């Protein structure tokens, strides 16, 4: 029986520069931050990142890891705008594919269903078509309605953070919303699930919460606090004070250098968690 447990570093060792990587969660909620931090420590670059974006996108922008970003929004939720993403856009530092939120879902669903596209009305008549000239429409074969054909967004890898998982890759969410984590996993060649706790299969929780099946998962990382500073309810809420410190530092190069030295330029995730614990105790 496959034991898929691995470390953040082992996950990153399976990734390559230039890959398309989907990141689960939503805004500043249940983001696989320990895996993002491991990417920051690596020499990976030129990534295409697909995300309902939050600080995952901001941190990867700040580190120059992103060549292209596919997104509907980037936000820290309680702080509406993500400063590193804003800076990267203003500098023209990243290529972007800005879609309606529903188009992102449709692209992932098409990839997960092995379809070339899925039709929708979302995006029609908006400037999403102007700024993404590669998008095409399709005429209904059963009538005359013109619909947008959202191209599949196949992922080389997906990174998601769940509350619980077993060693084989079955995973459950215990909070209010799965977001689109199952679709990210199913749209990916290889999906990596980090989780608060690895538990025996029988302890994953209620049937309706078992939404990530092991056939879609290549690796499992036990990462307590792995979503910090985003929320991972009911295990923990967003660390609002830390997020505020992050967003404030992101607006000033000197402050950012200090923040990065304290929290990011560290040997591993354990050192990050220790730095966060020291901050909380101070």
């Amino acid at each position, binding site marked *: 029986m496959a034991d898929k447990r691995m470390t953040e570093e082992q996950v990153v060792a399976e990734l390559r520069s230039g890959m398309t990587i989907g990141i689960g969660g939503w805004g500043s909620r249940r983001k696989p931050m320990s895996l993002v931090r491991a990417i920051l420590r690596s020499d990976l670059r030129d990534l295409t990142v697909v995300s309902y974006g939050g600080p995952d996108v901001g941190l990867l922008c700040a580190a120059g890891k992103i060549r292209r970003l596919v997104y509907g929004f980037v936000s820290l939720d309680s702080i509406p705008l993500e400063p590193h993403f804003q800076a990267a856009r203003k500098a023209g530092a990243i290529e972007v594919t800005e879609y309606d939120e529903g188009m992102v879902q449709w692209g992932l669903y098409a990839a997960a269903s092995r379809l070339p596209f899925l039709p929708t009305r979302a995006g029609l008549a908006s400037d999403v078509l102007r700024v993404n000239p590669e998008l095409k429409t399709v005429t209904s074969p059963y009538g005359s309605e013109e619909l947008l054909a959202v191209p599949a967004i196949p992922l080389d890898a997906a990174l998601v953070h769940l509350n619980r998982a077993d060693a084989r890759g079955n995973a459950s969410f215990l909070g209010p919303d799965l977001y*689109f984590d199952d679709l990210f996993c199913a749209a990916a060649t290889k999906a990596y699930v980090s989780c608060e706790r690895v538990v025996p299969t029988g302890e994953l929780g209620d049937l309706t919460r078992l939404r990530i099946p092991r056939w879609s998962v290549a690796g499992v990382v036990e990462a307590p606090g792995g979503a910090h500073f985003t929320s991972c309810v009911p295990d923990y809420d967003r660390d609002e004070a830390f997020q505020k410190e992050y967003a404030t530092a992101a607006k000033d190069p000197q402050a950012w250098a200090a923040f990065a030295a304290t929290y990011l330029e560290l040997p591993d995730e354990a050192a990050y968690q220790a730095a966060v614990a020291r901050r909380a105790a101070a």
Partner: protein
Amino acid sequence: MNMPSTRAEVCAVACAEAWRGDGEILASPMGLVPSLGARLARETFSPDLLLSDGEASYVAGPWALGGPPPETVEGWIPYRAVFDLVWKGKRHVMMGASQIDRFGNQNISCIGDFAKPKNQLLGVRGAPGNTVNHPTSYWVPKHSTRVFVERVDMASGVGYDKPDRGEFHEIRRVVTNLAVLDFATADHSMRLASVHPGVSVDEVVQATGFALEIGEVPETRLPTDEELRLIRDVLDPKSLRDREVPA
């Protein structure tokens, strides 16, 4: 004779009116005053509306701005279910607008050239899909020529000048701190529907960066005594509404 009301309370009622007659759909307000408006509409003239707690539950009963949502949950509305509702059309959203033009094109994406913007905002979010799938209204807490522009930089929400906007497109109304605007004109260009008590038509004209359709302009209706009681005692006892629309 109504009890005296504040501008924020007039705005809340004007937002509530957006959902009048909507029946059994999800009301999705963005912002404090629209949230107050949606809850007020459900407590009064649109009792069948569905409301979310802002996370993933449909909740029953009234609750206060900034307070804990009601304990009674009617159902589950994670983001995926919200998208399903959008496709089905069973929703009426009231969004913000960083820019809006005379045909109701709205921008929340970026300011300046999209390729290298002067300022990056949220991204288009769900605005393109919302506007072509179900009714949309807008809330602008500070009516100004920065928001009401001749041409938006990035059309996120779809306006009436787009021939391919489809059969489900409808912009119900735009509520601001000064006025209510709608698109009830022959060419669906923006019309000044009413000015809030104490605001002149000229004030609205001066704060708008394009020519509005202006006919007979009535005053926005005042809150009833019952509406004021609900706003002040039940739905916003901490007066958070005054933060968005100062008295």
